[in-house]
């Protein structure tokens, strides 16, 4: 079956609308990174991963996804809801009291689709490795995916995990870093430069791929390539170039929209740039 890039792009447009409306409704949350990763998550959940929205924590026989940079929860929640894990109407409860859609993802409120709490950065790669090893012990040949922010890899635990996975040939793992070059206090170059990421991860022993994260055709192409490279003795790392705030002109090219919500006027402006393709929640 040929991939319908146009349809995936349309889904991503709806997900971007969801992100903006969720963040606007509670006047908090992280729209910038969420918008930048919309295409990637739509590709994963609507095309790449074999997964079952009738959620089961153990996920045996399913591909698993772990969001390590938990602050981009709006895009995660929208994609989970749009792919059938829970009713899209529940997106309206994001960050509100008694909601299953906590500010950062958690298993604690039993939201289908979430297998691990994240928010405190740097922990997801270790968890993904553990889940990948569990699959190997279970003779389960499905894959484990994870997503990390580029600022997040300043955390030391990431490099502990980066060392572990190649040494132990965890080759059923595809980790992606969202390289948007931005973090809270400024650009990653200003705050703590990441250096040559390809060279660093290759030196640790990973198979490294690069992807244009806001070009749906390239996202699909590289994710298929990554799957083809699985089970060949090395863990796979995708460096995904994205634009923070992608899809909304005034949110791009800046770290300003990392963690602030649009006002009414800004929301109207932003929604005017994004087609409502699946119906707003």
């Amino acid at each position, binding site marked *: 079956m040929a991939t319908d890039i146009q349809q995936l792009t349309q889904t991503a447009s709806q997900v971007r609308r969801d992100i903006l409306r969720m963040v606007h409704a509670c006047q908090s949350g992280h729209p910038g990174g969420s918008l930048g990763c919309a295409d990637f998550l739509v590709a994963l959940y609507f095309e790449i991963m074999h997964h079952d929205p009738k959620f089961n924590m153990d996920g045996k026989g399913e591909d698993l996804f772990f969001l390590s940079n938990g602050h981009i929860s709006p895009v995660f929640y929208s994609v989970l809801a749009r792919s059938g894990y829970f009713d899209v109407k529940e997106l309206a409860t994001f960050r509100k009291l008694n909601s299953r859609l906590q500010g950062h993802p*958690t298993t*604690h409120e039993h939201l289908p689709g979430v297998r691990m709490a994240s928010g*405190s950065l740097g922990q997801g790669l270790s968890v*993904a490795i*553990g889940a990948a090893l*569990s699959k190997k012990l279970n003779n389960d040949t499905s894959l484990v995916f994870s997503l990390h922010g580029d600022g997040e890899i300043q955390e030391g635990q990431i490099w502990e995990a980066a060392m572990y996975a190649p040494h132990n040939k965890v080759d059923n793992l595809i980790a992606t870093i969202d390289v948007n070059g931005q973090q809270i206090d400024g650009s990653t170059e200003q705050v703590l430069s990441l250096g040559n990421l390809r060279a660093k991860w290759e030196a640790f022993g990973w198979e490294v791929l690069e992807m244009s994260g806001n070009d749906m055709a390239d996202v699909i192409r590289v994710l298929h390539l990554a799957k083809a490279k699985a089970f060949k003795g090395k863990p796979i790392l995708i460096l995904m170039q994205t634009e923070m705030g992608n899809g909304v002109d005034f949110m791009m090219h800046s770290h300003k929209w990392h963690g602030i919500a649009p006002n009414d006027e800004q929301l109207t402006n932003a929604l005017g740039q994004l087609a409502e393709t699946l119906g707003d929640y």
Partner: protein
Amino acid sequence: MKKYTYTEKKDTRSGFGAGLLEAGKKNKEVVALCADLTGSLKMDAFQKEFPERFFQVGIAEANMIGMAAGLTIGGKIPFTGTFANFSTGRVYDQIRQSVAYSDKNVKICASHAGLTLGEDGATHQILEDIGMMKMLPGMTVINPCDYNQTKAATIAIAEHEGPVYLRFGRPTVPVFTDPDQKFEIGKAWMVNEGTDVSIFATGHLVWKAIEAGEKLAEMGIKAEIINIHTIKPLDVQAILTSVTRTGCVVSAEEHNRLGGLGDSIAQVLAQHLPAPQEYVAVDDSFGESGTPDQLMEKYGLNSEAIVKAVQKVIARKQARG
């Protein structure tokens, strides 16, 4: 008064190693992870028997805790092993988010807890771990007292659903509990009944309390000795039943006075049954290098210290009338 004797001394960490091997034989979902301390944790028997279920993570404790959390997805029951200091303080946030808040069935097994680590000194002698772990919602905290109890506890936690912190130690100590005991999480063990004072002891201090009880008996004091191996969930009923009878309390633990078993008991008493309490615990300080016995004496954690605390608390009870 029941008389306790022993024929041999063994380290509680070896009880863990034996229990882990048995748990691994009983359930193929049991897996183990270690951060470059396999021999010290006595995990070598498990590693040898089940090499495919043993994960050597290197000196990378944060990664170990995260991996353990991930391994639960798919049904594994991971036991992590390193020293108590590196099992808790070093990885508190990983345990908090990836294990406790994520409701993961991880067993955090910690050796070389407390002063009895000995000569390595304060960098390795954690005295705050019980406090840190008991504050985490949903975490079970267990500190067994001898080889047999540690082995039984290790087997029991494999069958318990939910995160557990299991704390044990390095030195050889008397083996005096039943080798065939069934370990019940959260159920205090009545070591000796008495009417004058309740001594609630955990870990290595249980044997010290038994020794103290014999000295007290010679002085005409009938001490009730209760082993609180599970600090959380605490056996509140056992504590209240005992203190209703005795009217005063000594808590004994190889831990900081702040945040340990004594504090948990004090909270129960303050809410339900106010009574005088004395703490046998480290008085808010770090440890130092020395032999285990030297350190336990210097920091007031031996049977003489328990006897003195009993005399003091009984005097306080009598002064209240």
